């Protein structure tokens, strides 16, 4: 029996063409696979998913018109552990703001209204017991950020010792989180360390773009 042809892949918004997407039978939707440091915003009924160790993902959408997306990032190491609290913006905070504002601004540019935004938070696990709790730093940063921006956090699954796979459907706000076995710890940590090294090597050059 011939399999019916797959629906055509929805057009990616400008700037997101490089994000890898594939058809998923279970959800009968295209799914975008995010890597650390990437983000993805869509107007379509598609899924965006990622695996998280100590990194964090904010899933944000306009609850009225369904435009929304996900980011995946980690704060670079900062010399002052509490610098995100001080008035001087540290490089770490700047990087975090950058990751959050990119996501939010693209949602707003594509028809999202600030007052309609809602968020869900995932990740920030402490998956290596002997390491400092970098996950917690990311959690605290994002919670603070969303509080200041007055974006409501509907739910979160953060911290703890497990890596996670998160799948988010911006059109409906539906999310599925799966804890991953410790078998995957090292693979995930390695991917995240590679990413954080590139971030620390190339700090953000200019100030955050203001829209």
């Amino acid at each position, binding site marked *: 029996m011939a399999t019916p042809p797959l629906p055509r892949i929805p057009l990616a918004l400008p700037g997101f063409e490089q994000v890898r997407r594939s058809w998923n039978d279970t*959800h009968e939707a295209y799914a975008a696979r995010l890597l650390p440091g990437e983000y993805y915003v869509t107007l379509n009924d598609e899924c965006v998913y990622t695996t998280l160790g100590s990194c964090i993902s904010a899933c944000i959408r306009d609850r009225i018109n369904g435009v929304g997306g996900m980011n995946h990032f980690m704060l670079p190491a900062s010399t002052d552990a509490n610098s995100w609290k001080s008035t001087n913006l540290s490089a770490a905070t700047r990087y975090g703001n950058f990751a959050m504002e990119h996501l939010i601004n693209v949602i707003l540019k594509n028809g999202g209204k600030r007052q309609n935004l809602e968020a869900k938070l995932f990740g920030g696990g402490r998956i290596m017991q002997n390491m400092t709790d970098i996950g917690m730093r990311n959690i605290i940063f994002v919670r603070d950020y969303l509080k200041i921006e007055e974006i409501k956090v509907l739910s979160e699954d953060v911290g703890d010792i497990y890596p996670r796979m998160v799948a988010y459907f911006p059109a409906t706000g539906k999310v599925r989180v799966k804890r991953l076995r*410790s078998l995957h710890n090292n*693979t995930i940590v390695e991917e995240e360390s590679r990413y954080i090294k590139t971030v620390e090597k190339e700090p953000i050059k200019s100030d955050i773009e203001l829209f």
Partner: protein
Amino acid sequence: MKNNIADLLKGVDGLITLPHVYIRINQLVEAPDSTMADIAKAVSQDPSFTVRMLRVANSPFYGFSSTIDTVDKAVAIIGTSQIRNLALSMSVASTFAGLPNNLVSMDNFWRHSLYCALIARILAKQARRCDPEAVFTAGLLHDIGELIIFNRLPEQAHQSLQLVLDQLDEMPVYQAERQVIGFDHAEVGGELARLWTLPPLLVECIAFHHSIERAERYPREAALVHIANSLAQMAEVDTLETEDVTPVDPLAWEIAGLDEEIIEQVIREAQAEIIETEKLFFGK
């Protein structure tokens, strides 16, 4: 480069060897004219194993009512073929310490194996037709092929795990291994078990824990280890969602004569026992 299992096993020859105490006990168990006293003597020749074995014998793991203070008594109560399994179970972690890898910590690897062992044992007690102690050992050994793949084929092993993580849907590691390497850890472990002439029950459970329909002599035991593997993953990440882990072949429940309804209770029991059992078997 085409991989084959025989070459892979040649590569680990000498890096991992069965412990002497197991080999001696095994010879005696197989010999028709050996006595329990012979086996007790073989055990006594390994003082470190003797101490640890007596500790297990007197622990809640067995829950015997009387104190077992001599090796003779232990062999009599636990049974000779059980002592053989115990010798294997208690040494497997140190045996495979000779095969380090960068993909999974040994603590995490053995915790999963021990969860699988505990759960297989609990399931066997409920299924009633299998030897709980034998499937315990089978559960503890079921993934040994993984350590060989991780050590000998680190690049391809890494690619397999990456492939699993790239899938939105649950993809079992063995499927990724078949795709990337051409064979999986169950086949590798099964070959090693055959090479080591481990008891056929262990060989089948290790080789067929992802393909239970291939088990010939021990389909029930293989089915129990297969179910226990998935439930062990659930116990580890503390979930009751079966779709979060390697799917259980419905045939396994049928062969084992067990019902999915027991999952939660079995997982809770294993979670309650894991820390103490780790201390007993891995000396932690």
